[in-house]
C-alpha cells in the first residue's frame, strides 16, 4: 500500500568523478591477484569474462595492456570439432561463448585464427524449426541466443546462412503487451531480453516492427528516483541495466528520454575508489561485468573520455567501422 518505491539512496560521499585509471588497473590485474577464487569460480564463463575485460580496456584506450597473443591462442584451443567455441579449455561449446570469442577476435582483427566456416555451421545448426536458436546441443531456447546467433554471423559477414524470416518471426512472437520482450513467447518483459531483441532486430533490419514509442516509454520507466535503472518494474537499480536499457533506447532512437545527469551520477556512484571497477549498485563488490557496462553506459551518455561504443554489439565503434558493420538505429 502507499507509494513506496524500491530504490537505493546514494550517499553524499559516493564517487562522483570518473576514475578511468583505476578501472584500467583493476582490469589489467584481474586474474593475477589474490582474488583468484572468484576468477576460478568463473571459469565456466571465461570467454565472456575476457570479452568484458578487453572491450572495456579498448573503450578506455588501454587495450595494449592485455596479452593479445596468449588470448588468441587460448581462443584457438577452445574451438571444438563441431565449430562451436567453449568458455574455456575443458568446457563444452556454447553460443554465448562463440559470440564472445568472435567479438574478441574482431577487436584484435584476427578472425581467421579460428575456422570461420565451422563457426558458421555451428551457429546455423542451432536454429530450430520455429526460427528460435538453442544455446547448445542441449536445447535451451532463449532470445539471448537469437541475438548471439545473428551478432556472430554479422561479425563474420554470414547472416545469409540462416532462415531469416523464421528467426525474425520467433523474436517478434516474444513481443509482449507492454511493448517489451522476454526470453520465450509469453515470458515477462525484461531489459536484458529487450536489449537482445532490439539488437537482433537492428542487425536483421527489422526495427520498424518495434513499437518504439511504447517500448521507449517502458524503458524510460526503468529510471528510478536515484537515477539508476532497473530491469523490470519494482526491482532495484543495477548498473548493468545502464547498458541493457540505455543501449535499447539508443537503438530505437529514444535515449534522450532518460534523465542523463541523474543516470550518470548513479553510474559514477557505483565505482569503488579503492579497488577500481564498478559494482551493481553503490557500495557493493566490483566485477569486470559491471565495470564494462558502467563504462559503456557512460560512453552512450556521451562521456568524451571514453571511446564511442556501438549500442548493438557493445564493441568500440571504430572496430565496427573497420569491419564495415553499421547496424540500423531508429531516430
Amino acid at each position, binding site marked *: *500500500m502507499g507509494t513506496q518505491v524500491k530504490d537505493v539512496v546514494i550517499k553524499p560521499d559516493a564517487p562522483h568523478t570518473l576514475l578511468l585509471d583505476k578501472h584500467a588497473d583493476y582490469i589489467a590485474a584481474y*586474474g593475477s591477484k*589474490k582474488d*583468484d*577464487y*572468484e576468477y576460478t*569460480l*568463473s*571459469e*565456466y*564463463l*571465461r570467454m*565472456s569474462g575476457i570479452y568484458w575485460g578487453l572491450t572495456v580496456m579498448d573503450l578506455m584506450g588501454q587495450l595494449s595492456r*592485455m*596479452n593479445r597473443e*596468449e*588470448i588468441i*591462442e*587460448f581462443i584457438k*584451443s577452445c574451438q571444438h570439432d563441431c565449430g562451436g567455441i567453449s*568458455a*574455456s*579449455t*575443458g568446457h*563444452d561449446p556454447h553460443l*554465448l561463448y562463440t559470440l564472445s570469442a568472435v567479438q574478441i577476435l574482431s577487436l584484435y582483427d584476427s578472425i581467421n585464427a579460428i575456422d570461420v566456416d565451422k563457426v558458421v555451421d555451428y551457429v546455423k545448426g542451432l536454429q530450430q524449426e520455429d526460427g528460435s536458436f538453442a544455446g547448445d546441443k*542441449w536445447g*535451451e531456447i532463449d532470445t539471448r541466443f537469437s541475438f548471439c546467433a545473428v551478432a556472430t554471423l554479422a561479425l563474420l559477414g554470414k547472416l545469409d546462412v540462416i532462415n531469416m524470416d523464421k528467426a525474425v518471426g520467433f523474436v517478434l512472437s516474444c513481443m*509482449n*503487451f*507492454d511493448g517489451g520482450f*522476454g*526470453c520465450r513467447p*509469453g*515470458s*515477462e518483459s*525484461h531489459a*536484458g531480453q529487450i536489449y*537482445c531483441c532490439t539488437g537482433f532486430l537492428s542487425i536483421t533490419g527489422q526495427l520498424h516492427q518495434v513499437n518504439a514509442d511504447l517500448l*521507449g516509454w*517502458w524503458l*524510460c*520507466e526503468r529510471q528510478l528516483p536515484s537515477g539508476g535503472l532497473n530491469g523490470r*518494474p*519494482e*526491482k532495484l537499480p543495477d548498473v*548493468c541495466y545502464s547498458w541493457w536499457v540505455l543501449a535499447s533506447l539508443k537503438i530505437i*532512437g*529514444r*535515449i*534522450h*528520454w532518460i*534523465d542523463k545527469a541523474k543516470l550518470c551520477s548513479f553510474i559514477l556512484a557505483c565505482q569503488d575508489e579503492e579497488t577500481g571497477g564498478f559494482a*551493481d549498485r553503490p557500495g557493493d*563488490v566490483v*566485477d569486470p*561485468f559491471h565495470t564494462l557496462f558502467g563504462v559503456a553506459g557512460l560512453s552512450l551518455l556521451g562521456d568524451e573520455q571514453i571511446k564511442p561504443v556501438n549500442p548493438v554489439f557493445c564493441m568500440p565503434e571504430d572496430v565496427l567501422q573497420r569491419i564495415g558493420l*553499421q547496424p540500423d*538505429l531508429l*531516430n
Partner: protein
Amino acid sequence: MSSVEELSNSVTEYLEEDGVEEVNTAEEAEMENEEPVRGGYIFYRERKEWADLEPVPQDDGPNPVVKIAYSEKFTDVFDMFRALLKNDEKSERAFALTAEAIELNAANYTVWHYRRVLLQALDKDLREEMKYITDIIEDQPKNYQVWHHRRMVVEWLKDPSEELRFVAEILSQDAKNYHAWQHRQWVMQEYKLWDGELEYVEELLEEDVRNNSAWNQRHFVISHTSGYSDSAILEREVQYTLKQIKKAPHNESAWNYLNGILQDGGLSSYPGLLEQVTELQDTCSSPYLTAFLIDLYEDALETNRSSYDQQETLDKALELCKFLAEEKDTIRREYWNYVSRSLQNTYGSGEPVSSSQQPDMEPSDP
C-alpha cells in the same frame, strides 16, 4: 549475459566456508600438509579407488591462475573432473563426482552436461534425479543450468506432475524469480496444465499487487485459455485491475496491464472507462493514472471519437503532459515533452512544434 550478478555473493560464501589458506602451488600445498586429510575429508588425489586417474590441473590460458587463495577441495575435485572428461569415463564414480563438482560450482555448465550424459549412459533413476535437482534448485534458484537440467529430466520422464507445486514453492521464496516463471510457463504450455492458474495468480497478487511477473502470468493464462475477445471476460479484467489500482495506485504493472488488454479495442471506446479513471484521480492519483488519461485522450483524437470534443480533448491532454513534465514525473520530462509535441503536431491547428532540446541524432549512414 550469464548470471554473474550472483557470483560475488557465492564467492563470499565459499571463502567463509572453506577457510582459505595461503599456498603458492598445489605441490606446495601437498608439502605443507603432511597428511592429505583435513577434518575427515580425503582428497580424491589420495583415494585408492581413484589412483588410476591422473588429475588434470586447470589450464586457463592467459593469466594462469596463481593458486593462492582458493580451496584445496575445489582444486582437487575439479582436477579429477577434468581427468574424467579427458578419458570420457562413464562410471558411477564419475557420476558421484559431478555432484561434488556441482556443490562447489553449480553454474559450471560443462559439469551439468556431463552429468546428463552419465544419467543416460548409466541409465540412472530419474526419479532420484528429480529429488536431487529439487534440492539443488532450492539452494540456488537463480541459475540457468539448474532449471534447464530439471526441464530435461521432466522431459525424459514425461512427468510434469510435481512441477507446478515445486515452482510455487520456489516462488514463495522469491515471487519474481525469472527462471522459475519460465519453467512454469513451459510446463503449462507443454502439458496443457492451465487449470487453477488464474486463481494462483490472484493469490500472488493478494500478497504483492506490484508483482510484475504475476501480472504477466495473468496475461499469459488468459491469452492461452479464454482470450480477451469475449466482452464479459474483458470487463471482468478491467474491473479486477481497477480494483487492484485502488489498493495501490502507484503500480506500474497494473496500469500496463490495463493498457495492454484495452489496446486493440481502443481506450476511448471502452464504455465508462474515462469516468471510472477520472473518479480515481482524487484518491488514487499517480503519474501512471495521468499517463493513462493521456493515452485515452490520444486514442479519442486518433479515432475522432464523436463523444469527445477534439479541441477540448487535445487541450486536456497537453495540460496533463505539462503537469507530468514539470511537476509529477520530471525525470521523464523529455518523454512527456515529446508526447506533447506529437499531439500538437498531429492534432493541433497551428504551426508544427519543434523540440526545445534536440534529441540525439545519429550521423546518417554513408
